C-alpha cells in the first residue's frame, strides 16, 4: 500500500469517526496538543483512558450487581467516566454517561443496568475504532510517513 493511499485511508477513517459521532472536536484539540516535544501524546492519553475506563466499568458492574445498590458510589464513577470520555472527545460515550447519570440520580436500577450496557457498548465501539486508528497511524509512521492532523472539512 502506498504511503499516499495509506494517508488517504487514514483521513477517510478519521472522517468516518467524526461523521458517526464517535468522536468530536475535542479529539482534534487533543491531536493539536501533540507536537515534537510530546509525540505520543494522543496515544498516551487514549491508553490511559482505556485503562481508567476498563477499571471504572468493572467497578460499575460490580456496584450495580450488589443487592443494595449504593448510588452514592455509582454516581462518581459515572461522573468520572463522563469526564474522561469528554476529555478525549468520545462523544457517544459521554452522551450515554449523561443519560446514565440521570437515571442514577433517579435511582432507577433497571434503567441503570440497561444504560451500563449501553455505555459499555459505546465504549467498546470507540475503543475498537481508536485502536484501529492508531494501528493505521503506526503503519504510516512505520513506512516513514507523516501524520497529518485531520482537518474537518464537513
Amino acid at each position, binding site marked *: 500500500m502506498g504511503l499516499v493511499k495509506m494517508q488517504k485511508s487514514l483521513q477517510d477513517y478519521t472522517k468516518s469517526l467524526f461523521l458517526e459521532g464517535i468522536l468530536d472536536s475535542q479529539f482534534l*484539540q*487533543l491531536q493539536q496538543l501533540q507536537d515534537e516535544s*510530546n509525540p505520543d501524546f494522543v496515544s498516551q492519553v487514549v491508553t490511559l483512558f482505556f485503562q481508567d475506563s476498563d477499571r471504572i466499568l468493572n467497578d460499575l458492574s460490580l456496584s450495580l450487581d450488589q443487592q443494595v445498590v449504593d448510588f452514592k458510589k455509582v454516581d462518581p464513577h459515572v461522573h468520572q467516566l463522563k*469526564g*474522561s470520555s469528554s476529555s478525549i472527545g468520545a462523544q457517544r460515550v459521554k452522551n450515554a454517561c449523561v443519560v446514565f447519570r*440521570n437515571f442514577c440520580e433517579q435511582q432507577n436500577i433497571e434503567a441503570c443496568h440497561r444504560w451500563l450496557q449501553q455505555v459499555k457498548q459505546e465504549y467498546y465501539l470507540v475503543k475498537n475504532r481508536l485502536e484501529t486508528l492508531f494501528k493505521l497511524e503506526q503503519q504510516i509512521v512505520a513506512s516513514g510517513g507523516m501524520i497529518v492532523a485531520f482537518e474537518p472539512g464537513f
Partner: protein
Amino acid sequence: MSLLHVLGFGVKIGNFFWMLCCWFVSWFVDGGIEDKSSLLAGSVGDPEKTKMTTMKKKNKMWFWNRISSSGLKIPSFSYQFPGSVKFNKTFWRNVVIGWIVFWVLVSIWTLWYFSSHAMEKRKETLASMCDERARMLQDQFNVSMNHIQAMSILISTFHHGKFPSAIDQRTFSEYTDRTSFERPLTSGVAYAVRVLHSEREEFERQQGWTIRRMDSHEQNPAHKDDYDPEALEPSPVQEEYAPVIFAQDTVSHVVSLDMLSGKEDRENVLRARSSGKGVLTAPFPLIKTNRLGVILTFAVYKRDLPSNATPKERIEATNGYLGGVFDIESLVENLLHQLASKQTILVNVYDTTNSSQPISMYGSNVSADGLERVSPLIFGDPFRNHEMRCRFKQKPPWPVLPMMISLGMLVIALLIAHIIHATANRIIKVQEDCDKMELLKKKAEAADVAKSQFLATVSHEIRTPMNGVLGMLHMLMDTELDVTQLDYVRTAQASGKALVSLINEVLDQAKIESGKLELEEVRFDLRGILDDVLSLFSAKSQQKGVELAVYISDRVPEMLIGDPGRFRQILTNLMGNSIKFTEKGHIFVTVNLVEELLESIDGETASSSESTLSGLLVADRQKSWKNFKAFSSSNGHRSFASSPPDINLIVSVEDTGVGIPLEAQSRIFTPFMQVGPSISRTHGGTGIGLSISKCLAGLMKGEIGFSSTPKVGSTFTFTAVFSNGMQPTERKSDPQNNNQPIFSEFRGMKAVVVDHRPARAQVSWYHFQRLGIRVEVVSCVEQALRYMKTGTGTVNMILIEQEIWNREADAFIKKLHKDPLVQSPKLVLLAKSVDSSIDALSTGIDPPIVIVKPLRASMLAATLQRGLGIGNRETPQHKGPPALILRNLLHGRKILIVDDNNVNLRVAAGALKKYGADVVCSESGIKAISLLKPPHEFDACFMDIQMPEMDGFEATRKIRDMEEEMNKKIKNGEALIVENGNKSSWHLPVLAMTADVIQATHEECLKCGMDGYVSKPFEAEQLYREVSRFFNSPSDTES
C-alpha cells in the same frame, strides 16, 4: 319698617352663625379647649348692635389668623392617628354628639331668652299704660277736689258771711251746673248745714221741710227707680243734724236729708270737720242711682282757721259741709275712653284702706293671666288708700320669631353635625381603604417576588431534565434513522435547544426583576469581545452574504473593567436581531466614547447612501440616541459629564434589514413583545432579548435606544459605563504600541487600502491598524499604484475590496505587469463571502491572499501570517491569537492542576504544557492543599470541582484561608517575604474546571473564592479569556 327689622335681625343671626362656624372650625382645628362661656356671652348675650359689630370684627381677624395657621395643622391632625381607626371613630362620634347636645342647649336658651325678653317688654308696656291712667285719674280727681274746696269757700263767703244769704237753692244749683266742667269727676255737689238740736225747730220752720234720715235707703237699695224722698221718715232726735240745703240738680233728691244719719256720710262729715281737709268715703252704692260712688266732703267754717287749729276748734267753727259725689264707675269709664288702646288692657280700681279686703271701685273681675300692674292712686286723703290694677285683655301671643330662630339654629347645627359626621366617616373610610391598599400592595409585591423565585426555580429545574432530553436526542441522531426520522429528531433537538436558551433568558429576566443580577468587575479586552461576537455570527453572515463589520474608536482604552459577559450578551442580542432581519447589505457595529461622539455630533451630516458600509441606506443613527438622558441638551450646553475614571461607551449596531414597523416601535423593549405574532414563527426567538438588553444596559448605567425606518433598516444604540482598565503607565506608552504584542511581527508594515467607500475603508483601516500595520486609504487602483510609486517607504501589501477587484482586476494586473514595482507588494483581497472569492484566484500573478469578512484581528493575523509566511510558529490549523497570546501568557508559569480523573488530568496538563507552562498534577484536593501551602511557587491552579474526599470548593476555601493567614503574618511582619520576591500578599488565581457551565455553579465558584472557571475540555479562547485576567503580559513572568 317691620321688614327692615326682620332683615336687620336676619343679618345679626347670620353674623352670629358665621362666628359660631369660625369658632367651631378653629376649635376643631386646634382640637382643643376654648373658653365657651366667654364666647357665649360675646356672641349671644349682648343684643347691642355696636358691641356685636366690634365682636364680629375681632372674631373675623381671629378666625383668619387661625385659618392661616391651621393650614399646616389639619394634615398633622389627621396624621395623629393613622393606625387607630377605632379611636378615631369614637372620637368623632363623641364630637358629633357633643356638638348636637351643645346646640340643643343653645337653641333652648335662645328661645327662653327671647321669650323672656318679650315678656319684659309687655310688662313695661303695661306698667306705663297703667301708670298713665292712674296719673290722669289722680289729676282729674285733684282738679275736682280743688274746685269743691273752692266752692266751700264760696259758700262760707256768700251763704254764711252775708245776711241774708246770697245763695239759695236755685242759685246754687245753677252755679254748680254751670261750673260742673270744672269738676269732671263729680256727678253732683251738695251742701249740708250744721244744725244743732236746739236750732232744729227754727230751722225746719225756716226751710219749710223736716230733717229726714236716710238709713232706710241703704238697707233697701233694690228699688232705686221708685225712690221717693217724701217716703222717708223724719230724722229722729239727735244732738246735731246736717241736713242738705243746697244740691246740684243731679243730686237734688238729697235735699233735706240728714247727712249724719248715713253711716258713711256721718263718718265722713265728722272726719272732715275735724281735719279741715277733703275726706273721702269708702265706695258705697249711691242713693237713688244705687251706683257705686265715693263722696268727698269738705267742712265749711265760720271763720278762717289757722292751719294748726285743733280739731275741737275746728268742730266748733264748723258751719256746714260741702259734699261732692264721685260716680267712680262712669267717671273712670269716661276717662279711659279718652285714651288710646283702651281695648288692650283691663283696668280695676280698688279702695285698699282695708288692705285685706280691697273694695272694688271699678272694673269687672274677669280673670286674666297673671301679668298685673298695680299703680297707687293718691286722692289727697291720707286716711284712704286707692290703687289701680291693670291687666292685658289678651293672652300674650306665641313667640313665633324666637322659636323660628332657635329652630333654625338647631337645623343648621344638625346640618353641620351631619357634615362633620360625613367627613369623619369619609376620612375613616379613606383610611381604611388606604390600609387595605397597603395590604394589597404588599401582597402584590410578595406575589411578584414569589413569581420571580418561582421562575428562577422552575427554570433551573427544567434545565436538568432538558440536558437529559438533549443528550438522548443527540444519541438518537447517531442511530440508524431514515430521513424523515432524522428530520423529526433534528426538529426536536432544535426545539430543545431553543427551550434551554429561552429558559436561560427567562432566568435572566427573573433575576433582573428580583434585583439579584449583579455585574462582575473584571478587566477585559473590549476588542477581543467584539471579535468573539463577530466570529459567532460570521458563518451566518457569510451564508447570507451580509457584510459584518466592527469599528472601535482609537480613544476607547484597550482594557476596560466591567462585566464582559453581560456586555457580550447585549451585543449578541442586538446583532442576533440584526442578522435575523437582514437579508442584504451590512451590519455595522461601532464603538465610540460618548465624549467623542458629542464632539463630532454637530459636524456629522445626514448619511447618504454612499457613505454607508454597503452603500445601502440606513436608519439615522443620531435618532437612536435622541432620547438618551445623557445627551439631552439644555440651551446648547450638554448636560453630559463624565468623571475621569469612567469610560462612557456608546455602541451602535446598524443594519440594513427590514426595519421595525412604526406601530411596533413603542413596545420593542417590552418583554415577550415581538413585532407581530408571525415573527416568532418565521424568525424564532422569544422577544425577551431586547428587554433583557435594556435592563443590562441600565445596570451598566447606560441607556438603550433605536431608530428604525421600515424597509431601510434599524440602528440600535446603547451606552454603558465602564472603568478604565489600563494602568497609567500603559496609557502613556506609544500609541503604536497599543496593540497586542502578539502581532509584533506585523509592526512597521505598510499597506494601501483600495476602497471607494470611506466607511468600509475605515473599518479595514481599523483592523489593520490593530495589527500595527500602517494603512493608507485610496479610492481606486490607479491611485494606489501612483501612491506606491511616489510614496516614501515600501508598501508591503495592497488591500483591495472584492467589489473593486471584480471590476478592475484585469486592468490592475495588466498595469502591474507593464510597470512592475521595485518590490511587488502582496495582494490581499477582502471578500464578503467564501464562494464569491473563488473566481478571483484565476489570475496570472501571485495568488492574492483572500480574507473573508468579517474582519477580526485574530483571523486577519493568522491569514496574513500564512500568506506572508512570517511568524509561522503555529501549526496552520491552530491559527488565531488566543493560542499565540496564551503561549505568551503561560510560558514558564508554574501551574497546578487538580483532578481526580487521570485522563482529564493528562489532557489538561497536555494542553497547558503546549502553551509552555510548567505543569504539576495532583489527584486530590488534599494533596493540592499541601502543595499550595504558602510560600509556594505556583502561579495558578486549575481545580476540578467534583472530586471525592474533598471537592474543589472546599479545597479552594482552605487555600484561601491559608493565604489569608499568611497575609496577616506578612502584614504584621512575622513572615518574611523572601521566598517569593515581589509577593507582598498571597492570592493564587484558582480557576475551576467544570463541564457544568450552568450559571449557578459559576456563582458558587466565585463565592468560595475562585477567580473564574474554564469549561472542560479546555477551549483555547475561553482559557485565554480567563487566564489573561491574571497574567497581564509576558514581561511579568520574567520578574
